[in-house]
């Protein structure tokens, strides 16, 4: 008898504390001059990222809407960028996002992302603001450490991720992790192997006492970030880790339509090579880029995870009213 399943999985104390934290978020952004916006949860254009699996749905009326596929957003990023292209104001959003096939103590298929974007903000500016935000939300802690992607690999694994040969990176994976060939093999890309090393060997060792910011990801891992103007090997992208949890992903955004289209095409090629469903690129985002955007930076924070840390929770369901099993 599923007597308890009608009940929320969060307890009343956490519910009250979560509410207080949400209020704090809004206070922070109001004080820093940001406009709160709401963008759609359903979209015609989904991400091309080969590692994300969006939920699909249909709209019943045909009026101007291509009802063959609609998707739930995996992040509000594309809409918020289109908004910036139109209004050029600093904006923030507390948005639900949806990712299929992700469930665990840090993952729920429906989760909350806090995203904010500011024109005329460099990656450095944004990193400072993220630090300020975390300090404000989690109360004081020791100063955040900042390290480049290159240096964090050199320090913990003695290799340079920007120049090391693939065979050596692969060798390190096999030697240090003992993962079998199904998981680690030479057919994978260098980036995938580096990601495995980072996840299993570096992440558990960093950001223990205070959040750590890893910046200047390799250019090949830029995603939607701009390439560094002085060093084309690195992208203006950073991530924040704390207590073994990946908390945020931010960057100085790419504003060049041509380059963005190239990256979308690369993703599409990878999807095809893996027999993944075809996702056409978001042409409306490309049109917004073509229209012209000021230099701007933005970041996505896993708000549920931030709340987990603030409330000392071990599982994401402890800080959600109804996780997927009870939704």
């Amino acid at each position, binding site marked *: 008898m599923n007597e308890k399943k009608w009940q929320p999985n969060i307890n009343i104390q956490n519910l009250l504390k979560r509410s207080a934290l949400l209020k704090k978020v809004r206070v922070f952004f109001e004080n820093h001059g940001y406009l709160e916006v709401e963008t759609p949860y359903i979209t015609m254009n989904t991400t091309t990222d080969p*590692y994300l699996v969006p939920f699909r749905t249909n709209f019943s009326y045909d009026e101007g809407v291509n009802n063959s596929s609609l998707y739930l957003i995996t992040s509000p990023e594309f809409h918020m960028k289109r908004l910036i292209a139109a209004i050029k104001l600093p904006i923030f959003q507390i948005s639900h996002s949806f990712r299929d*096939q992700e*469930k*665990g103590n840090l993952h729920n298929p429906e989760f909350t992302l806090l995203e904010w974007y500011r024109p005329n903000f460099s990656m450095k500016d944004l990193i400072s603001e993220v630090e300020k935000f975390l300090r404000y939300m989690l109360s004081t802690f020791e100063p955040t450490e900042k390290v480049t992607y290159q240096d964090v690999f050199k320090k913990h694994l003695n290799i340079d991720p920007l120049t090391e040969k693939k065979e050596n990176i692969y060798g390190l994976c096999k030697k240090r992790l003992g993962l079998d060939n*199904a998981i680690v093999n030479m057919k994978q890309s260098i980036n995938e192997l580096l*990601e495995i090393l980072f*996840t299993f060997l570096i992440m558990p060792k960093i950001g223990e006492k205070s959040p750590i910011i890893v910046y200047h990801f390799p250019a090949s891992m830029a995603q939607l970030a701009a390439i560094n103007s002085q060093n084309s090997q690195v992208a203006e992208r950073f991530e924040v880790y704390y207590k073994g949890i990946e908390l945020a992903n931010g960057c100085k955004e790419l504003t060049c339509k041509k380059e963005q289209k190239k990256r979308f095409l690369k993703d599409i090629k990878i999807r095809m090579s893996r027999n993944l469903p075809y996702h056409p690129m978001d042409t409306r985002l490309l049109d917004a880029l073509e229209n012209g955007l000021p230099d701007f930076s933005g970041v996505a924070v896993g708000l549920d995870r931030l709340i987990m840390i603030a409330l000392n929770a071990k599982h994401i369901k402890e800080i959600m009213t109804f996780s997927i099993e009870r939704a």
Partner: protein
Amino acid sequence: MPIYSSNNFRVGLKIIVKEEPYAIEENEFVKPGKGQAFVRVKLRRLLTGTRVEKTFRSTDSVKIADVVETTLVYLYCDDRFFYFINKSFDQLSTDKFLIGNCAKWLVSQENYSVTLWEGKIISLTPPKFMHLKISNNSEIENGLQTKNKLVILSNGVTIKVPLFLREGEVIKVDTKSEKYVSRVKAKIR
């Protein structure tokens, strides 16, 4: 044999890895940023009891092990086998060597917790306490200590007991530590 995808794993599930049954004791879904997803599990190898860690891709699948935990009643034995019976009165026999050391606690008509894999016993646990009769009162003094003596129980196990106990008396024994616990007073039926 049903198949489970690694992202459906849960604690307590019994799976087959390299043709052997394992029990999942801990289960963690790992997905970095926008990278590939993994499932990291801590497993207990059922045939040996040892613990191992394994990482799966979230798209991997494994066979479910046909492992059942149940209670059987021990009946008797012959040269090669021990014979048990279950609640449905089906008889189960098992090679003596598979039971190993636990064999000394097998007493006819007693209940035993067993783990069955594909219908065969892979592990047996005697009850925590058992009542056994002292069959041989060999008054072997325990060195200079005269408070205890060694006796042999009806199942052949030698155990240290207080001096006042006599042959034919029934005592309560802790099967894990193999120690005397208390005397069992005979009930008048």
